[in-house]
């Protein structure tokens, strides 16, 4: 017993004040190597009785593990110290630059919008930008000489019966023509209006359209449901769980009733004022009839918002023209 105590004391004493890896290694061999006192002690155990062998063998092996551990720790610490002295880093020096690119703010907004509606099980679809008079106007219940159909308001293609779509509502027509309800879709996309450009008007901008329809009597979406969906969407998009939504009476040929959607935030820049953010309403029975559904059998809502408007509100952008033209000083802020 005393012998083991002595071995331990010597071995630990030698660990003190060690500065050099080579010295440490020599001491380790001296105290733990084949010809160390500890190894010799273990070898003498075979001459003892079986009980003693078990008892002292256990104690000696435990000591060996302990010493090996202590020497290993001492070695790690010496190595780290050496590295610290010779290869110290200036952590305040600049990192080597990795230049990333930037997604356009409209793309980011579109992805946010898609994700919110996808979470409600809306299917995301995108449609063509060149459309027929039927899909853009006739099927959506625009009367034949509605002002929006004139050359002054719509880009018609020369010598063709086609036009640049004026709204993503065209996809209401295309999707319903191809599907039976129930259905719910969201359609982001580019639209065109022949109007003068200024800080809040562009002749080319982006909309996000929504449509939810079901057979009457099968949980067909109501105006109250539209309000619920608008509330969910705008609260998520503007990250304001208490944001208010209200409807004002309005008119669009393809809905009845038609409403304008206003929001009022409870914090930040949207707080305290009502802002018009979307047009919406219950899908007009004439539209259902035009896409091939029986009149009076279906019920549902539709809504449309200008993506630019949402992004401008979110990021306090004051000129819609910045979205076009690819100025990196603008884009790289997002």
């Amino acid at each position, binding site marked *: 017993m005393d012998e083991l105590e002595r071995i331990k004391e010597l071995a630990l004493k030698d660990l003190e004040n060690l500065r050099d890896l080579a010295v440490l290694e020599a001491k380790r061999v001296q105290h733990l190597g084949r010809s160390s006192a500890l190894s010799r002690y273990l070898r003498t155990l075979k001459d003892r009785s079986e009980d003693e062998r078990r008892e002292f063998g256990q104690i000696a092996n435990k000591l060996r593990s302990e010493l090996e551990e202590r020497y290993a720790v001492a070695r790690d610490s010496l190595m780290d110290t050496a590295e610290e002295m010779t290869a110290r880093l200036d952590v305040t020096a600049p990192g080597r630059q990795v230049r990333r690119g930037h997604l356009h703010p409209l793309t980011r907004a579109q992805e946010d919008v898609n994700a919110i509606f996808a979470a409600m099980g809306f299917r995301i*679809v995108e449609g063509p930008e060149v459309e027929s008079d039927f899909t853009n106007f006739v099927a959506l219940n625009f009367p034949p000489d509605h002002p929006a159909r004139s050359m002054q308001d719509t880009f018609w*293609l020369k010598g063709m019966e086609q036009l640049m779509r004026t709204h993503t509502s065209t996809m209401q027509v295309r999707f319903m023509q191809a*599907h039976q309800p*129930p259905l719910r879709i969201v359609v982001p996309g580019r639209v065109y209006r022949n109007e003068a*450009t200024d800080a809040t008007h562009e002749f080319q901008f982006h909309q996000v359209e929504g449509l939810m329809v079901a057979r009457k009597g099968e949980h067909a979406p109501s*105006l109250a449901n539209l*309000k619920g*969906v608008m509330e969910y969407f705008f609260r998520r998009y503007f990250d304001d769980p208490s944001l208010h939504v209200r409807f004002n009476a309005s008119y669009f040929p393809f809905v009845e009733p038609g409403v304008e959607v206003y929001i009022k935030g409870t914090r930040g820049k949207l707080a305290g004022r009502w802002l018009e953010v979307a047009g919406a309403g219950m899908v007009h029975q004439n539209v259902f009839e035009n896409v091939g559904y029986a009149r009076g059998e279906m019920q549902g809502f539709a809504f449309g918002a200008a993506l630019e408007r949402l992004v401008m509100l979110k990021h306090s952008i004051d000129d819609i023209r910045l979205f076009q033209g690819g100025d990196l000083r603008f884009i790289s802020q997002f």
Partner: protein
Amino acid sequence: MKFSFDWIRELSETSLTASEAAALLSAKSFEAVATDDVLDIDVLPNRPDCLSHLGVARDLCALEGREFSAPAYEYHAGKHPAAPIALEDTEGCIRFTAAVMKGVRVGPSPDWMVQRLEACGLRSINNVVDVTNYVMLELGQPMHSFDLKLVDRVVVRRAHEGETIHALDEERTRYALDASMTVVADGTKPLAIAGIKGGADSGISDATTEVLLEAACWQPETVRATSRKLELRTDASIRFSYGTDPNLTAPALMRAAELLEKVAGARMDGALIDEYPTRRTPQEMVLNGDAIRTLLGNDVPDVRIREIVASLGFQVHERDGRAVVQVPTRRLDITGPDDLAEEVGRVIGYDAIPSAPPLLPVYDERSWVREDADRVWDEYGFVRERSALTHLLAGAGYSEVYNYSFISDDLRELFRAAGPELAQPQSAEYRWLRTSLVPRLLINARDNLRFFDSVKLFETGHVFDHVGEGKESARLGLILADRAGSAEPFYELKGAIDLLLRRAGITDAVFDDAEPMTWDKGAVHASAKGRRALIRLEGSEAIIGFIGAVSGRVADALKLKGSTAVAELDLRALVVHAQGEREFQPLPKYPSVVRDIAVYVDQGVKVDDIIQTVHDADLNGLVRDVDVFDIFLPTGGEKLKAEGDLPEYGKSVAFHVVLRADDYTLTDREADAVQTAISAALQEKLDARIR
């Protein structure tokens, strides 16, 4: 449109202030803004009944929940027939009503009338004209007054081709008429453009003593078309374009007669003249409370629904145990049960509609697609993959831009390509649909080089084929521009393309410089021959993209400095590949051997030739990869510094060859044999010199 709130207050007996009334109307009817005692109301096109003070007053009463009592205009007309009129154009004219007023003393109007007209933005002319305008503002019925002495007879007919009329305005503007337009004429010439403007030759003057007062209902489509053709919009044409109530003409005439008696001492002579070939009667529809509640998603009771409908002046009566509504002829917008639901919804107020998130069943619409339908849209899978590609590009240093879908005359000329032309563009700058994203990307690069030394941009969007009817496809365009112009940007851009192709799971793309380039000219013409390539799939004719170094010609024309490369990819082709199922390849069980080979070859020898030769020499199928890691091209007259008889102006190409067998560990001897075979083939076929 401007309304006098004083007038509305008189008709509605409201106790609200102007701004309270404006707020109520804005929420429940149409946008209204109050300034002092004037309401500026943006009456929606479906509510022409509210293009009058009476209409707004009636709506306001309903919104307030008060009963509205319409003023009764009674005037006892005589019995004997007045001047006869001939209504020939029964398509353009729904009803023509007129009265003869005698003993008229033309003069200034009383102050109260002038004030009301002016509050609504109308100038006072004389008491006769003012009365017609006053009645229009009050009841919504536009009227016209003729000097009866200048009118021998009245014919309502289509204009004759080539007829003209001098309008009743200060300039006596001359309008050329045609047979699509309806006019009020005398025996020889047009006196007024129906529903739009009177003529100068039959107007009221100080000398007028007898007046023919007209109150008609004109067909909206004709008035709209004529107004557009003549580029002439008046207070009358706006109202007729939206549609007026044919049953309003007679009451309006009575009201005008009453006023003319008061302000001009006139009296009506004889009976009303009234041509009304097809009388319009109120429509009837069933009032279904359940349908209204289902649509609105609230629980408004039947009794309240009836109250609301009645407050709007609709008659409700029982028939066969059901409530039937009689819709007044002024409400052209009410054609079906959903229109009644809208009336109920807006009058109780949309704020009273609860917010009720819908119950959302889980379903897959693909199971009830109509198979015969056109499917021309992109699905979420496409949107998601495009998103993955754009995020990858942004991570690789490329920034995203959005451009107009149109190009200018100049760009069309420079690239000799454009899609369909717009019939009426904003300007020559945006006249043609783009066939490629490249032209505007070049302009983006030029503009940004004013602020940055190098620019990496991309755009995704639709392009429109120059053949066919605006056939469109989705593209991904990229540009890399370096102001200093030191490096060859083509190769860096090609690296980005490789990245995208790998992300899409395309490992067998070929860059092919064989002319002609069958890609949109709008992109191809950005570069010169020998400095551009088509990107297609190995063993396939399908072209998925284009890449090229921008030519000096194009750079000069666009004032683009430095060196630039552009590329364009077919986004759908990329996405289709990316969506393909990925098959797992077992991990190699045996180690690879890597050999480096470097050769001098003639400049005309392509890397692809070298790789192909390596593969051809590999008879036992041990070569797994050939990876070029260095190419040295001497510039100018510099020759390669190497021993022996090198080809002049050659280049040096160095590459790793990765060798591996599937079922055993390759020995050095076997690897040596393959390397020797490769070297021999390179020497023989490409006249290469092994370094």
